């Protein structure tokens, strides 16, 4: 609770020796991580590397097995999301039978820090009709509504799990551009996971690369990116390397 | 393809088998306990003889019936309810779940024909269900026969509880319930909707069609003078109709017959009539004959077959409908 | 011989046309990129070709045979939701799908699964990651030894390494057997090297259909002063404009006027141009 008094100084996310074990094994282990303020963070890694687990731990939907994690100085608990954190899950869960207006009302009712004008502005910008049912919207429009719902609570940390996965290239570009513009003007830290490295290039200024539950690479892009290698290439090379190592150890064990 | 269906429905089939095994154990245990109770209260003879004919200790039969009738009725109710359960838990989800989860696409994009896919799923689901049903039906009947006339059997084979669990009737109901569930499943494409709608529709259809069976089997007709003493009521036949005929052989309406009977109960002077006087009065006042149409106990099997034909026929129609919808399903 | 032909195909869901008056032919041996915005009708088209959806109008043929509620034996389909029995193990699923096919090669499935990292044969399909499930589904599709492979968003839930692996598997099949592939995807950057034919669908209609190299050669990206746009001749597809500068995507452009820079578009900018045009058509209010 002490940390709460000076929330401005507390970092969005810090983790020490963080680990999460499921019945099938460790999804995340011995993770030390610091996500600095005011960054757009790319969370990348192959399927099953622990990206969703890490997001779950930040939101408090999951409890760490070992170590500890702090979000703006607080320990996330199962009681609910930290008021300054907004989370958009991969499936973009929205009530299909709600209209967009009703969805925004839902946001207002469930979030004390809700900014209705801002949310409406985002919807308007996306040209989504307010009286349309969410179930009838296209994938891109639905993502924009989910994004408005997440941004409407005025978070200081926004977590997005594969926000662009099922969008067409144009919608992808527009959503990403909106997101980054909002993050920059509002001073929000955004953590977004994605499989498509090309689209993260030039957008992210901080990178966290996970591989089989461990942090392989983390830091500001200008520090880790070798001068001439593009970010996507760098990440892909590191992933290849790690996969090859895995194969080698598995081969040695067998 | 059979293997695929078997592997997909394995859990369900194992549950069914478990039900059969557990059911058999429970029934065998209950039956032997019941036989002990019968012997210990010296009721053995009352199992085959009518209660008034067998010599038994005072109150023993009543005490036995108080203790066992409910349990026996529950056994019967299980067999009566089993077809509905088969329809709800096996028929309805059979296709609905695949359509709901989109896994039908996997089968539809292989070279197996849709009809074959459907038939193999039907067979794998239906045959074990019927085996379990018939098995349990046989076990319950075995248990009931041990109680004989001390148990629910004394009411004859035409009471709703007794009729619905004997011979081929349960199979007919089960086929119908299963096909109904499957059909509603492919139409609604939603498991829960198919389950609830299937249960409702099955109960309604069972009630609505229960009267139909009696009319489709030729009934026997008995015409006697009103004075004759007949006891078709008591030998376990299904009585469809009784009434009085006038001298011309025409049916006397219920109200008129009632009024005439009432009139004959008193003499012209207004005093109560004697039994002989009453009987003599009837032909004079126009009630010259009494008739009854009934189906004797010995023809119960015909009724069961008609029952099977009705529900089985409906089941076939529904399965044809299921196949049609599945083939058109887009 | 064409692997797939659509003649005035249309599909209506209640009041909305998902596909309208689509006509095209996919020559055998091509690797076709099926692209278009969300809701353009790509999935409907593929499902129709797989016999899962009946066209409301027109006719679809695969290898010359009309698709009539039944998939052609030489065609394999990967559904967008992957449609696998989740309670079976990978091994059991392979056996199950094999049992549902007349022509089947378990060896081929094993071979493909062997090339892919991280698929455990004894794991239940439901416990696999989305990416691994997709790879299993692709292996099963290849087990049918198809001559035409219809893939609905095969790459959407794969990580970069798995994408590379999977594309390699598909391309090897093309190299070995001359398989025709039609795949829908939003990941234009991944399509560029693997596809040689493009089918761009928008609003249920075919917008672009042809060899990628030829289509690209037919188009021009012109960059020049906004004030001078009237000098440019050709079919304008879409334009982005700043205060001074116009970037125009043109089809069959006439010679470039002076003062304009002229380049051939790459696949990404070509598709984006068409998508932008379609968005503007749908909501003219947003046009600036």
């Amino acid at each position: 609770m002490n940390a709460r008094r000076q929330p401005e100084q507390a970092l969005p996310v810090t983790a020490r020796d963080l680990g999460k074990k499921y019945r099938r094994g460790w999804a995340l282990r011995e993770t030390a991580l610091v996500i600095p303020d005011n960054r757009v963070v790319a969370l990348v890694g192959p399927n099953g590397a622990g990206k969703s687990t890490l997001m779950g731990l930040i939101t408090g939907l999951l409890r760490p097995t070992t170590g500890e994690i702090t979000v703006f100085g607080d320990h996330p608990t199962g009681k609910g999301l930290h008021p300054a954190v907004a989370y958009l899950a991969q499936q973009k869960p929205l009530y299909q039978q709600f209209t967009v207006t009703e969805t925004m009302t839902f946001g207002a009712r469930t979030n004390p820090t809700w900014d209705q004008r801002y949310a409406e502005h985002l919807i308007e910008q996306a040209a989504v009709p307010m009286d349309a049912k969410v179930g009838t919207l296209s994938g891109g429009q639905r993502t924009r509504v989910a994004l408005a719902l997440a941004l409407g609570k005025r978070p200081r940390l926004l977590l997005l799990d594969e926000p662009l996965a099922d969008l067409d290239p144009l919608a992808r570009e527009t959503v990403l551009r909106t997101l980054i513009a909002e993050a920059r003007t509002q001073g929000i830290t955004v953590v977004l996971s994605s499989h498509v490295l090309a689209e993260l290039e030039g957008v992210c200024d901080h990178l966290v690369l996970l591989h089989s539950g461990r942090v392989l690479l983390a830091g500001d892009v200008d520090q880790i990116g070798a001068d001439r290698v593009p970010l996507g290439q760098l990440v892909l090379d590191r992933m290849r390397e790690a996969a090859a190592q895995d194969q080698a150890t598995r081969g040695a064990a067998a | 393809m059979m293997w695929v269906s078997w592997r997909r429905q394995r859990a369900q089939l194992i549950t069914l088998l478990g039900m059969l095994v557990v059911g058999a154990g429970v029934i065998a245990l209950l039956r032997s306990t019941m036989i002990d109770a019968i012997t210990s209260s010296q009721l053995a003879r009352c199992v085959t003889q009518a209660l008034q004919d067998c010599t038994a200790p005072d109150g023993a039969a009543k005490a036995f019936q108080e203790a066992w009738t409910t349990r026996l009725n529950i056994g019967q109710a299980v067999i009566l309810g089993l077809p509905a359960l088969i329809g709800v838990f096996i028929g309805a989800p059979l296709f609905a779940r695949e359509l709901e989860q989109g896994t039908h696409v996997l089968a539809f994009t292989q070279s197996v024909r849709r009809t074959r896919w459907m038939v193999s799923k039907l067979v794998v689901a239906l045959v074990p269900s019927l085996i379990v049903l018939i098995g349990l039906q046989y076990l319950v009947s075995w248990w009931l026969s041990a109680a004989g006339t001390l148990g629910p059997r004394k009411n004859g084979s035409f009471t709703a509880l007794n009729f619905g669990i004997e011979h081929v009737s349960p199979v007919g109901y089960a086929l119908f319930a299963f096909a109904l569930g499957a059909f509603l499943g492919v139409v609604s494409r939603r498991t829960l909707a198919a389950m609830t709608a299937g249960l409702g529709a099955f109960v309604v259809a069972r009630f609505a069609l229960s009267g139909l069976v009696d009319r489709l089997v030729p009934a026997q007709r008995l015409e006697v003078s009103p004075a004759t003493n007949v006891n078709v009521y008591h030998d376990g036949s299904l009585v469809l109709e009784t009434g009085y005929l006038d001298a011309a052989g025409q049916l006397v309406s219920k109200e008129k017959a009632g009024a005439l009977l009432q009139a004959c109960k008193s003499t012209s002077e207004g005093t109560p009539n004697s039994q002989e006087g009453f009987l003599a009065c009837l032909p004079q006042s126009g009630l010259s004959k009494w008739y009854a149409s009934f189906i004797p106990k010995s023809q119960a099997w015909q009724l069961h077959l008609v029952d099977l034909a009705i529900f089985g026929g409906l089941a076939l129609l529904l399965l044809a409908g299921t196949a049609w919808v599945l083939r058109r399903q887009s | 011989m064409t692997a797939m032909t659509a003649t005035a195909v249309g599909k209506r869901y209640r009041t909305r046309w998902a596909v309208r008056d689509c006509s095209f032919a996919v020559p055998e041996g091509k690797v076709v990129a099926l692209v278009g915005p969300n809701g353009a009708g790509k999935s409907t088209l593929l499902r129709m070709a797989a016999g899962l959806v009946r066209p409301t109008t027109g006719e679809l043929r695969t290898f010359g045979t009309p698709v009539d509620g039944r998939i052609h034996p030489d065609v394999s389909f990967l559904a967008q939701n992957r449609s696998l029995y989740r309670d079976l193990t990978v091994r059991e699923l392979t056996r199950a799908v094999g049992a549902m096919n007349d022509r089947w090669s378990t060896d081929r499935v094993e071979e493909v699964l062997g090339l892919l990292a991280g698929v455990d044969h004894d794991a239940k399909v439901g416990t696999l990651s989305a990416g691994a499930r997709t790879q299993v589904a692709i292996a099963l599709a290849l087990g049918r030894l198809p001559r035409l492979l219809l893939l609905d968003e095969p790459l959407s839930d794969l990580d970069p390494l798995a994408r590379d692996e999977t594309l390699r598997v598909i391309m090897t099949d093309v190299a070995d057997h001359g398989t025709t592939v039609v795949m829908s995807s939003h990941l234009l950057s991944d399509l560029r090297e693997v596809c040689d034919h493009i089918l761009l669908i928008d609003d249920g209609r075919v917008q672009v259909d042809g060899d990628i190299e030829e289509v690209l050669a037919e188009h021009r990206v012109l960059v020049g002063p906004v004030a001078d746009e009237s000098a440019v001749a050709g079919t304008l597809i879409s334009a982005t404009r700043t205060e001074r500068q116009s970037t125009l995507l043109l089809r069959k452009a006439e010679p470039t006027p002076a003062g304009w820079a002229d380049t051939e578009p790459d696949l990404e900018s070509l598709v984006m141009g068409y998508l932008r045009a379609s968005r503007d058509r749908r909501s003219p209010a947003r046009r600036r």
Partner: protein
Amino acid sequence: MLTGVIEFRIDRRSGVSTYMQIIQQAKQAMRLGLLHPGDRLPSAREVVEATAVNPNTVLKAYRELEREGLVEARRGLGTFVTKSLSSAATAGDDAPLRQELSGWMGRARRGGLVVEDVDALYSAVRDEHYPAEEQA
């Protein structure tokens, strides 16, 4: 078993089409003497396994090379180099022109020139001697 002598590297962000990259790399290998007449080019399948490109593109590039008379497709065997592009001037580490350039490069480096400077100088001089039309 006869395996391909060279391997193609496809650069996905170069903006040059895969087809052109294959042609250019094959020609370059021939020019540098890495490929001699009689050598087999990697089969489409080998290229696909290494780089996940469309095999049709590989074959199309080989057809173009064949049209230019540099290679020859033999049914069932593969595509073979028929012509040599290397000459004493380009092949081998000890080719005189190469050695001259190598010496020049060494002097540039010692003189403190960075890669960009060298590239700029090289292309400026190249453009002087080879006008634009010739390069296409």
